[in-house]
């Protein structure tokens, strides 16, 4: 089973929820996948040494000057403007390339091969008594996250339960992260920002037709707008985590949230039960 933990707005508590759930699932050897590859934070909740690092690449074109006739076809067919053909030189802009392979396949002189371009790493960390953490970490300066997200999700696919700590937003990176999940948990907060961004992420999840529910974090009583959205999109509110200055403070220090707010254990256990009920 795969559960995605996502949100529209950043900083609503995705990582708090996903790391605490991993701890709660201790005896089930959960795999937690941090697909917020631009700014991965789940590892900070465990502070364990990385046991394995896997480099991830994507393919980009490489021109063999001895075969290239500078005919310009590759530049013409590339829809991403990643190739520019000059009089006696071809410029390749790796950061614009989407690795579709069209240029290499269609070059009439077989002058284009594909070579690996590093985009980041996946760090594997053993979590004492609670499974494995896979952290995708995008190379700084790289623009495209989805290939790295996909590579991280392609590991340890046979685990009994997989949790995906997703990036904020509603773009292709978020879609790639939640894709293939059995359930999508959206973590939100009761503010106008939280409400606005939640609606956008509900739209995104709807496109993938994945069932899901909401967790309202920093709950302080009034959540009418979120209840409305929950009903409109048929995404039940599975839990409300009350606002706690103590929790905020200890989370910032890297202390265990389950100790700062003991009630959190029951709240999240209950959410996991509800997800199992829906999914079975």
């Amino acid at each position, binding site marked *: 089973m795969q559960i995605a933990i996502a949100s529209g707005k950043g900083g609503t508590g995705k990582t708090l929820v996903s790391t605490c759930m991993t701890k709660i699932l201790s005896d089930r050897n959960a795999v937690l996948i941090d697909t917020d590859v631009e700014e991965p934070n789940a590892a900070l909740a465990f502070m364990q040494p990385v046991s394995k690092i896997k480099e991830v690449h994507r393919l980009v074109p490489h021109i063999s000057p001895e075969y290239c006739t500078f005919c310009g076809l590759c530049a013409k067919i590339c829809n*991403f403007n990643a190739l520019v053909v000059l009089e006696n030189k071809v410029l390749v802009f790796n950061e614009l390339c989407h*690795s579709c392979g069209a240029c290499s396949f269609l070059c009439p002189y077989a002058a284009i091969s594909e070579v690996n371009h590093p985009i980041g790493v996946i760090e594997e960390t053993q979590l004492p008594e609670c499974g494995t953490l896979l952290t995708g970490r995008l190379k*700084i300066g790289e623009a495209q996250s989805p290939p790295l997200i996909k590579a991280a999700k392609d590991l340890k696919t046979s685990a009994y339960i997989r949790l995906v700590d997703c990036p904020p937003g509603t773009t292709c990176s978020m879609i790639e992260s939640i894709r293939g999940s059995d359930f999508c948990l959206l973590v939100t907060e009761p*503010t106008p920002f939280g409400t606005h961004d939640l609606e956008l992420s509900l739209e*995104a999840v709807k496109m993938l037709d994945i069932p899901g529910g909401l967790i309202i974090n920093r709950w302080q009583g009034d959540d009418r707008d979120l209840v409305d959205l929950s009903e409109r999109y048929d995404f039940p509110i599975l839990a409300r985590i009350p606002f706690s200055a103590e929790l905020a403070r200890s989370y910032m220090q890297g202390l265990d949230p389950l100790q700062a707010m003991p009630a959190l254990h029951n709240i999240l256990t209950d959410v996991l039960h509800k997800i199992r009920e829906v999914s079975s």
Partner: protein
Amino acid sequence: MKEILFISGKGGTGKTSLTSSFIDLADACVACDYDVDASNLPILLKPRNTVGHDFSAGYSAHIDRDICTGCGLCAEICRFDAINDDYQIIPLNCEGCGFCARICPVEAIRMEPRSSGHWFSSEFKSGQSLFFADLRPGEENSGKLVAQVKSMARQKALSENTDLIIADGPPGIGCAVISSMVETDMIVLVAEPGLSGFHDLQRIYELIKLRGIKAVLIINKWDLNPEISQEIENWAIDQGVYLAGKMPFSTTVADCISEAKIPATDSQIRNLVFPIWENIIQQLNVM
């Protein structure tokens, strides 16, 4: 004309609260929101006379069922799993590379421009301009939409002789952030004094260094964790990043956001952010 961009790496550190406050304090500026997939600045600036414009970037493949012979070549070469077993395009997966259209032996596939969202021009306060956008959920091309918003804001600033653009940036370090940084004169980093806030700050700063842009720092809610706040200050000294100011945690800011109000419209908050804004402007002017 100069552009100041507010970014943080980590989401939810208070970028929009601070950006909106400085926009309120600035004598005159063009405002923009580069967080094109979850745009929050308009919630606080409450613009009017909003005009929306279609934004298309890239293409999407379409298979003509009457021509298609079902040979399967397109599905075989597509690296994005965008063609299903019935030879239909899955729009969410299609990256618009056009490989399939070029290789189809019977020319059954055509590429059509793809609408990725909208960008908006609008006015707030007494006729100041705000530009923002709305990327369709699940779309790529956030970087291109950012570039579109930026280009419109710059044109406007030039045409009305406004010297300053203040921009609220997206979280992360990926394509939207890289696009936000293009032609920006100075970046204001908004950091939160937590383990993740500090970790993310260092990653975004690496990107800023690669781009060679001047950056200054604000530590937001510093008193929630004075120890890490001090560590961030020490880091800033080591890196030569000017500390423009520190904001204490304030329930008043949270109350303002709940009511969709710019925090600096509260006099107590205004007094806190004003000296920080003066420092930012001074840093911008010494460049």
